[in-house]
């Protein structure tokens, strides 16, 4: 038995039944899932959550499904790591890393949203799932979809790097490479979604898909022993993740699991694609689209669908936004790796580097508790580090040669 009342337009408030639809017929605003929180408050307690398996479905009453979870039964519940080495480096007392570089099965937070999207697609009775993607989402739809027995169509720009293509192809989806950029692929997909009865996770299933991001927030609260941190730093592409993590905190407060909520939200973007942070810094609610130019490709959405709401969450909570250059992104990746042993993709470099700036400028207090969201694994974007790592020591297979190197390192 479900806890969902229906769908509602975030802009004009018009209500709709639970169907695979994603925009308001009247004003084109995004549709959002509405829950029966009174009923959830009675059904979901800390003890009930703690008694369940360690995956994202332990919060299932707050997820938009009617029946039992069907996909991603091992996804989520990633580690929240107390990052003392990084904290010392950045000069703060309490820092935690929410580590989605190890999400199951494809090593990014997309495994959360796709788990929810495909469970919903099953409930709707779809036999085919699809997405437009340049990376993490494609991998997750390909993998989760394989396990769940869906036919899969994944649309990518034809210019995508070979390594990212292989990481989807291995699961044998129908991979369609389109002669165009990401925005053109996305536009084509919305036309296809109109014509074919498929579950496009980031189009007609989006209201349900996006709710999966909340599980990252629920886990943060639970892993901090049911407390909310002072600050959360979230990387922004469409802005959906930040909006949903904020929503998850508010929901835990609403159903009484969280007693006190005073968290500030901070948006992290690459300077080469920072429409949300620009709006935050200029204190305007107009999100002006940009043409992305950054190595942080997983964040390169120039016209972010949830930018308005992400900016609103930041403002409402008293947070701020920061943006960083490609060089700072690489330094951020390296800093996280050498202090905490976590290899994040470029988006993680953005988050670390922005956190550093936010601390240096006093936006994040040095004696406060901060959580940073690391959303994807660095093994996927290794090319970004080419020429920026330390060197290999090449030697002959002789002890003397090795000791020669030891001497050099000792210097």
């Amino acid at each position, binding site marked *: 038995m479900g806890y969902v009342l229906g769908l509602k337009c975030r802009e004009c408030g018009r209500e709709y039944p639970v169907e695979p639809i994603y925009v308001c017929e009247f004003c*084109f*605003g995004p549709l959002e899932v509405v829950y029966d929180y009174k009923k959830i408050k009675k059904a979901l307690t800390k003890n009930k959550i703690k008694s369940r398996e360690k995956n994202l479905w332990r919060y299932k009453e707050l997820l938009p499904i009617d029946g039992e979870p069907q996909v991603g039964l091992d996804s989520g519940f990633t580690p929240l790591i107390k990052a003392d080495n990084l904290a010392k480096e950045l000069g703060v007392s309490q820092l935690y890393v929410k580590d989605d570089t190890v999400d199951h099965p494809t090593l990014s937070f997309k495994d959360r949203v796709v788990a929810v999207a495909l469970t919903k697609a099953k409930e709707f009775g779809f036999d085919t799932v699809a997405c437009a993607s340049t*990376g993490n989402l494609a991998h997750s739809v390909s993998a989760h979809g394989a396990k769940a027995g869906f036919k899969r169509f994944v649309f990518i720009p034809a210019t995508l790097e070979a390594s990212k293509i292989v990481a989807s192809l291995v699961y044998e989806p129908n991979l369609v490479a389109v002669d165009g950029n*990401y925005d053109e692929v996305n536009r084509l997909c919305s036309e296809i979604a109109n014509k074919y009865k498929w579950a496009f*996770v980031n189009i007609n299933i*989006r209201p349900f898909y996006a709710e999966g991001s909340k599980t990252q927030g629920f886990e943060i609260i639970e892993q901090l022993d049911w407390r909310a941190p002072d600050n959360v730093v979230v990387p922004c592409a*469409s802005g959906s993740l930040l909006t949903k993590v904020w929503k998850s905190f508010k929901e835990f407060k609403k159903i009484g699991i969280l007693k006190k909520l005073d968290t500030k939200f901070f948006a992290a973007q690459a300077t080469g694609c920072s429409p949300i942070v620009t709006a935050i810094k200029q204190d305007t609610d107009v999100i002006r689209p940009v043409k992305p130019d950054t190595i942080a490709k997983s964040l*390169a959405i120039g016209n972010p669908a949830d930018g308005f709401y992400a900016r609103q969450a930041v403002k409402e909570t008293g947070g701020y936004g920061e943006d960083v250059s490609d060089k700072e992104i690489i330094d951020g990746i390296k800093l996280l790796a050498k202090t905490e042993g976590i290899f994040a993709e470029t988006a993680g470099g953005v988050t670390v580097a922005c956190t550093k700036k936010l601390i240096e400028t006093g936006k994040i207090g040095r004696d406060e508790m901060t959580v940073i969201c690391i959303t994807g694994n660095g093994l996927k974007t290794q090319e970004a580090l080419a020429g920026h790592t330390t060197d290999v020591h090449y030697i002959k297979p002789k002890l003397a040669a090795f000791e020669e190197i030891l001497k050099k390192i000792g210097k």
Partner: protein
Amino acid sequence: MAVKVRIPTPLQRLTQGKEDVEGAPGTIINLVTELDKSFPGIGERISEGGKIRRFVNIYINEEDIRFLQAEATVVKDGDEVSIVPAIAGGR
């Protein structure tokens, strides 16, 4: 030769199923106002209080008007205007 306006599927009910209609030269917001005279109801779907709705994207010859002068962008005969509901993202 007038301005060619491409209507998205969800709005074609208001244009008697037509995918393309003719629009008036001038500013974009004026074009929307004029369009509403021929196809009543279309104006409030696309705009509110003289502003294009947040989740509606308008392109002139494939360029987003927010890269131009937004609502004040001027279109002339021969230009092609596309009205496109914002597409949900997520890479």
